[in-house]
């Protein structure tokens, strides 16, 4: 028990992290560019959220070192996070009903 994570080998080179940073910057500029494109809001939302999920995955995997941790830790954290966040969405379709109701009463 005396040995802990401080003895973990530090994984990942500087160039790898710089490449991840460049990818994150590029995705950010792509998102800003997309915001000024003449496309449907629903499609824009899906693409923007897709970009954000990729960015979040890159940050967690490389900057937060999750890619270099034990699989048991990843399996403990990530599915719990994804399932709980997905469950938050369970009442979301009701917003469309509320919107339609508002438009009917208008």
């Amino acid at each position, binding site marked *: *028990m005396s*040995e*802990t*994570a*401080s*003895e*973990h*080998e*530090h994984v*990942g080179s*500087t160039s790898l*992290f*710089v490449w991840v*940073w460049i990818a*994150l*910057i590029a995705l*950010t*500029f792509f*998102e*800003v560019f997309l*915001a*000024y494109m*003449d496309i449907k*809001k629903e499609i*824009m*939302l899906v693409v*923007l*959220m897709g*970009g*954000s999920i990729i*960015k*979040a995955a890159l*940050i*967690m995997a490389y*900057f*937060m*070192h999750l890619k270099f*941790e*034990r*699989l*048991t*830790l990843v399996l*403990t*954290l990530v599915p*719990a*996070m994804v399932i*709980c*966040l997905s469950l*938050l*969405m369970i*009442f*979301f379709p*009701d*917003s*469309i009903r*509320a*919107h339609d109701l*508002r*438009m009917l009463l*208008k």
Partner: protein
Amino acid sequence: MEQVTTDGVAERGLASSDWAGGTLPYHIGHKKLGMWLFILSDSLTFGALLVGYSYVRVASQNWPTPFPFSPSIVFSTVMTLCLLSSSLTMVMAVAASKKRDLAAARKWLFGTMLGGGAFIVLHLIEWNHLIGEGLRPFLLPEEWAQKWPGASPLFGSTFFAITGLHMFHVFSGLIYLGVIAMRIKKVTDEDVEISGLYWHFVDLVWMFVFPLIYLLSVDYKP
């Protein structure tokens, strides 16, 4: 590579002895696991706020899209770049700390704080601009109410609540990193890594706040 168990078991996959006691099954210290669990719970806080915001927005008859390219989108994009760059400097601080190059670790930590500080300053300027226009938590500016008839007054409350809570996290992170930087000779490299986990999480949350709050509300008609 990993030599954590007391009985000499060293493998990257699941080892039965990991769960038999006397070892750290995740191969990380309890402080780092604690930070991960905090991040898990905090992600649910922000998730709930962003889902609530999306619900209110979709359910509304109309929703303001008030952010002009300059200053709002330019500022928020630069703020994003500040946070992303501060995450890179944080990675450098952790790497320097692992090598016990404490002077370099402190330098990178100060660089990270500079990025976080720039984020807060730019965000406060943006807030001041919107408050100057007349935006309040439960009240839209008169001009907006005419431009977007029937728009929900909850725009202000969702905007200030989400960006405010995030800004509070950045501010807390600055204090946390400041304490770590000042005590760099006393703290372990794992402590620096744990502070990095918090900082990267703050960056990660912004990756969702930025498109949902700003980019989906640009004032642009093709």
